[in-house]
C-alpha cells in the first residue's frame, strides 16, 4: 500500500499567557461585580447570586454593569470601572 504525507490544516495557537491573580480566601468585606451580558435572565441570576453573597458571605457591595448587547464585547469603560471597584468579577454566562 502506498503511503502519502499530508499536512495538517489546523492553525497554530499563540503561546502567549497571562497570569491569573488568585481568588481571595474570603469574600467578607469585598466588592463583587457582574458583567451583565444581557442574555435572558442573567440579570436575575446575578441579583440572586449577589443577594446570597451579601446575606451569607459578608459581601460589602455588588455591582452589575450591562453590556450593549450579548454579542459584542463589554465597553472598555465598563471593564476599567469593574477592575477599579471590584475584588471578584463574574464575566457572564451563556444562554
Amino acid at each position, binding site marked *: 500500500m502506498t503511503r502519502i504525507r499530508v*499536512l*495538517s490544516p*489546523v*492553525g497554530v*495557537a499563540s503561546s502567549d499567557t497571562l497570569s491569573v491573580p488568585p481568588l481571595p480566601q474570603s469574600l467578607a468585606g469585598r466588592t463583587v461585580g457582574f458583567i451583565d451580558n444581557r442574555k435572558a*435572565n442573567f440579570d436575575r*441570576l446575578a441579583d440572586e447570586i449577589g443577594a446570597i453573597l451579601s446575606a451569607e458571605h459578608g459581601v460589602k457591595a455588588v455591582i452589575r454593569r450591562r453590556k450593549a448587547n450579548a*454579542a459584542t464585547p463589554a465597553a472598555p469603560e465598563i471593564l476599567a470601572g469593574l477592575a477599579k471597584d471590584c475584588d471578584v468579577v463574574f464575566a457572564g454566562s451563556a*444562554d
Partner: protein
Amino acid sequence: MSELGALGISGLPLVMIEHPLGGERSEGISRRARQAVEQLKSLLTQPPGASTTLTGEIGRAEPARVSSRPPSIQAGLTDPATTNPATTNPATTSPVTVNDTPEAVLAAFCEREWCDGLPIVPPTEERVRTMLGGAPADRSLGAMPPLWRVATLDKLAVNAVMAGCEPAYFPLVVTAVQAMLEPAFNLYGVQATTHPVAPLLIVHGPIAAELGLHAGSGCFGPGFRANATIGRAIRLILMNVGGAWPGRHDMATQGSPAKFSYCIAERADASPWGALHDDNRVTVFGGEPPHNVNDHVSTTAAGILATVADTAVSLGSNVGWYFSQSQLLIVLGPEHAQTIANDGFSRADVQRFVFEHARLPLRTLKLGGMWGIQDWPRWMNAVTDDDALLPQVPSPEDVMVMVAGGPGKHSAVVPNCTFSRAVSRPIRPI
C-alpha cells in the same frame, strides 16, 4: 475549556451552572444561583496555586481545576473531544502519513475532525506549495477566533487544497479571510453564536467570470466548482484554523446547510442598476440561509417589494433586535428586478421601499423573539403605541440590493445575524 487555554488564561476560575438560563422561571434561576455560590465557595477555599494552569497550549487536556461541579451538571458539559477514545488528537499541527486511497484519506481526516465529512483532496506539500503560488507560507493574517489560532497563508492553502480549490481561487480565499478578520465583521460572534449564521461570500467584478463563479440559475446551490470549493475552503478554514467545531466553540443550535459552502457572484449583466461593485472585490456577509421570496403575480415594483418586505420580517428573525448591527441582503432574481426597474425604481428606491415596509408593529414584537433583551436606540425604546411600525435596520443603506439567479419569479432575502456588519475588500494578488 480550551478557549481559555487559547487565550492564555486557562487558570481563570470557572463556575458551571445548568444550561439553559434563558426561559427558566424563578425556581430554576434560584437553583442556578445556589449552584454558582456553592462552587465559588469551593474555589475560595482551594489551596493557593491549585487553580492556576498557565500553559495556554491547545490540544492537551487541561488539569481538572474546578472539582466542585455537581456531577449531574458535569456530565452534561463533558467535552466530546477529550472523551471519545476513537478521536485522534484533532489539534495536532504536524503532518501525518496515511494510506494513499480516497477512503483512507477521508477516514483519517474525519477521525481527526479535520474536515466537514465530505471527501477532500489530500493536502500534500506539493499541492500546498502550488496553491501558495510563491506567497510567503508563514505570512500571518492575524489570529482567528474562537481559538485564536494564527491564520498563516500555508494553513489557508492546506484548507483550500482540501476543499478542491484551483490555485487561481486562492487570492479570493485570502481576501475573504482578511475581510472576516476585520473588527466590524465580529468573527468571534459569527463563529461562536447559537445562531445559524454563515459567512456569505459575494464576488464582484470581472474576476467572478474569470474564475468560473456562477451567478445564474441555482446560484446558491450545487454544480459549480468555484462557488462550491471557495465557499467550502472558507468553512474548512473557520473549522480548522479558527477551531469552530459544531457543539464545541461553534455553538450553533442547529446550524444550516450554508455552513458547508456559501459563495455567489453578482449578475451584473441582468441588473437594471449595475453591480454593487464594479472592481474585483469580495464582500463577506454574516447571513442566514436565503429565505425564498415567491411572487408570481405582481406586475409592479410595489407588488414585488411588498412580498420582499414581508419575507424580510418575522418575529423569529434576529434582525431588528440588535438594531445598530442589523442588515438585510436582498438578492433579486433578474425577472423581479426588471419588473421593479420598469416602474422607474432606482436601487436607492428599492432600499428605501424595503426600509419603510419591512416593519413589525410593537405589539407583535412584544410577543417573543428577543423582547426585553433588545439593543435599541433610545427613540425606539420610548415608543409606547402598540400599532407603531418599527424598522428592522437603522437606515435604507442597511438594505443591500443585488441581482443574481436565472429565469423565474423568485428572489431571496438574506437576514444577517445582527452582530456582524458586511465587509468588502478588493481582491489583489497575494
